[in-house]
C-alpha cells in the first residue's frame, strides 16, 4: 500500500515541468530560421532582465516576439484542453469524453463567432472587443455541454453510446452554424472558417487577451482541483459518491462551469483543436493512475507538452508554410480514439 502524498504529487509535477521546459527550449530553437542554443539563452536572459530593447539580432526578434508568445499560447491552450477533458470524463463518467468529440469546442466556436458579430455591431474599441470573445465562447461551451448531457440521458442514466452520438451530431450541427455565420459576414474582421474547424495557433492574440487566458486557466483549473478527491468518488456513480459524503450537486456545478470556461477560453484563441483532452488524460492515467489529485496536474503539464510539440510539428514540417495544429492532433488522436472505443466495447 503506497498512498499518494502531496510530496509525490510535487515531485512528479516537477519532473513534468522539467520535460515541459526542455520541450519549450527545443520548440524555440526549431523553425524556419535556425537559432543557436547560446543565442537563445542570451536573448531569454535579456528578456527576463527587461533589456530586450538592447537586443539587436533578428534571431532574437523572431524568437522573443514570434515564437515565444506562440509557444506560451500552445502551452496554456494545451493545458486548458487536457484539464477540461479530464474533468468532462469524470463529470460524465465516460472515458471517451473530450471537448472536441462531444461538440463542446464547436459550441464554443459558435459562441465566439456570435460574440465577435455582436461586438462588431456595437462598435466598441478593438481591445475591449477581443476580451468579449472568450466569454462568448464560454457561454457557447456551457450551453452545448448542457444540451449534450440531456441528449445522452436515457431513463435518468447517462448512456455512453448515446452521449457520444449526441456529441458528434451536435458538433456537426454547430460547425454548420459556424459556416453559416461566417458566410453571412463580410468577414474581414474574422478569421477564416477553417480556423474554427481545425484550430490553429498561428494568429497571436493581443497581449491582454493572453493574460486573461492565463488567469482564467489558473482560476478554473484551481477550482477543479479543489474537487479532485470528490471526482475520484464520482467515478463510482453519483449515488454512491453521495453516500460516501460527496456534495454531488456542488461538485457538478463547479466542474461544469470551470471546464466550460477552460474550453471556451482555449477555443476563443485557437479554434477547435481536437483530441488533446482525450489523448493526454489517458496517457497520464496509464503512467500515474486514475487518482485525480495526480491526474489533473499531470494532465495540465501533459497537455502543455503535447500541444507545444504538436504546434512545433505543425509549423516546421512543411516550412515555410504551415499546417493547422488541429490537423496534427487529429492525425494522432482519431486513431487513438478508435482504439479506446474498440477496447471499451470489447
Amino acid at each position, binding site marked *: *500500500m503506497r*498512498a*499518494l*502524498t*502531496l510530496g509525490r504529487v510535487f515531485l512528479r509535477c516537477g519532473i513534468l515541468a522539467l520535460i515541459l521546459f526542455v520541450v519549450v527550449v527545443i520548440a524555440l530553437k526549431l523553425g524556419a530560421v535556425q537559432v543557436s542554443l547560446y543565442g537563445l539563452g542570451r536573448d531569454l536572459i535579456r528578456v527576463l532582465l527587461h533589456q530586450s530593447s538592447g537586443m539587436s539580432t533578428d534571431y532574437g526578434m523572431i524568437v522573443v516576439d514570434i515564437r515565444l508568445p506562440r509557444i506560451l499560447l500552445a502551452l496554456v491552450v494545451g493545458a486548458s484542453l487536457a484539464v477540461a477533458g479530464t474533468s468532462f470524463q469524470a463529470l460524465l*463518467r465516460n*472515458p471517451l469524453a473530450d471537448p472536441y468529440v462531444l461538440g463542446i469546442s464547436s459550441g464554443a466556436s459558435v459562441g465566439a463567432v456570435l460574440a465577435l458579430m455582436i461586438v462588431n455591431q456595437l462598435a466598441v474599441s478593438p481591445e475591449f472587443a477581443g476580451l468579449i470573445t472568450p466569454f462568448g465562447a464560454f457561454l457557447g461551451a456551457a450551453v452545448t455541454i448542457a444540451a449534450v448531457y440531456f441528449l445522452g440521458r436515457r431513463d435518468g442514466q447517462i448512456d455512453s453510446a448515446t452521449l457520444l452520438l449526441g456529441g458528434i451530431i451536435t458538433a456537426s450541427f454547430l460547425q454548420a452554424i459556424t459556416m453559416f455565420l461566417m458566410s453571412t459576414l463580410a468577414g474581414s474582421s474574422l478569421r477564416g472558417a477553417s480556423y474554427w474547424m481545425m484550430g490553429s495557433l498561428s494568429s497571436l492574440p493581443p497581449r491582454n487577451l493572453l493574460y486573461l487566458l492565463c488567469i482564467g486557466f489558473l482560476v478554473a483549473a484551481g477550482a477543479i*482541483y*479543489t474537487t*479532485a*478527491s*470528490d471526482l*475520484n*468518488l464520482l*467515478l*463510482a*456513480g453519483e*449515488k*454512491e459518491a*453521495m*453516500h*460516501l*459524503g*460527496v*456534495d*454531488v450537486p456542488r461538485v457538478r456545478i463547479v466542474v461544469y462551469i470551470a471546464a466550460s470556461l477552460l474550453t471556451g477560453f482555449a477555443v476563443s484563441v485557437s479554434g477547435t483543436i481536437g483530441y488533446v483532452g482525450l489523448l493526454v488524460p489517458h496517457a497520464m*492515467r496509464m503512467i500515474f493512475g*486514475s*487518482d485525480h*489529485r495526480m491526474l489533473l496536474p499531470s494532465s495540465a503539464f501533459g497537455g502543455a507538452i503535447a500541444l507545444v510539440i504538436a504546434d512545433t510539428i505543425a509549423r516546421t514540417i512543411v516550412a515555410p508554410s504551415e499546417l493547422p495544429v488541429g490537423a496534427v492532433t487529429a492525425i494522432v488522436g482519431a486513431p487513438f480514439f478508435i482504439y479506446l472505443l474498440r477496447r471499451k466495447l470489447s
Partner: protein
Amino acid sequence: MSTPLRTPMPSSSNFSPGQPQGNPDIRLSVEQASYVYAPNPSQAPLFTLEALSFQAKPGEIVSILGPNASGKSTLLNLISGALEPLSGRIFLNGFATHSLPPKIRAQRIALVQQESKLLFPSRVWEFVLQGRHAHGRGLRFVSEDDTAVAKNALAQVGASHLMDRWMDKISGGEKQRVILARALAQQPVLLLLDEPTLHLDIGAQVDLLESLRKLAAVNRYSVLVVTHELNLTGEYADQVVLLQKGKCLRVGPPATVFQRDLLEHVFQAPLTVEMTSSGRPRVTLFRKT
C-alpha cells in the same frame, strides 16, 4: 420604527440538535414515514410506500424482509437520506436523515450496495480508503489515522490479505467483504446493506452474516439488512420489518413475525415454519401442487 415585525420563522430545518427523540437507547426511529413515486403529480402513482414505523437500537440487526417490489429499496433510500419522506420523519440520534449535509450523513450512515461499478481499476486499499472521504478535508491526502482505520476495517471483515489486490481481480465474496470494509471505514453508527447476500454462495452468506453479528455487537452499530432471504433473516435478525406491495405487515422479532399463514401470503409460496432449539424459526419451502 417603520420596519415591520418579523414573524418567527417556523423551524423548517430539523437539523438543529434538539432533544433526542424519546428513549435515548433508540438510535434509528422511523416515524410514520411514507413515500410515493409518481412520474408527475397529475398521474396515478407508480408505487406507494405506506406510512410505517419502527425503531432500532445500537447493536441490533434489523431485517427488512419482503418479496420483489415490496418497497424494501425505497425504505432503504428513505432511511439513508437519499429520498425525503412524503410524510413522517426518520431520525438518527435525533436528526432527520434527509436533512443532514452529505458529509455529516456519510460520517453516520454507511450504505453497502449490491455492486459497485468501477470506471477505472483501483486497488483494494484505495477502495477502502474511499470510506475515509467524509472524515477528511481538502485534497484528503491519507493520514496515519486513515490508514489505521482502513487496515482495521479490512481486518474486521477478514480481508487484510487482499489489501494490494486489484478490485476487478477478486471473487464476488471477497468483493462483498471489501465493500463492507469501506463502509466500516466510514465509522458509521448505522450500517445499511442492500441485498448483501444476493451474489454469494451459501458459505459466503453465512460468513457475511456472522461477521455482521459480530460487528453489531463489538462496534455497537445498528445494522439494517434489506433481503428476501427467509432463513438468514430467521437465524440472524433481532427484528424483522415485513413488507408486501408497499405495506408494512408486521414488525417484531423473527419468532413472532415468522408465521406460516403470513409468510405464505406475503411470498406466495407454500411453506412451513418450525422453531429450532435455539428459539429461531426455520422455513421450509414446498412444491406447489
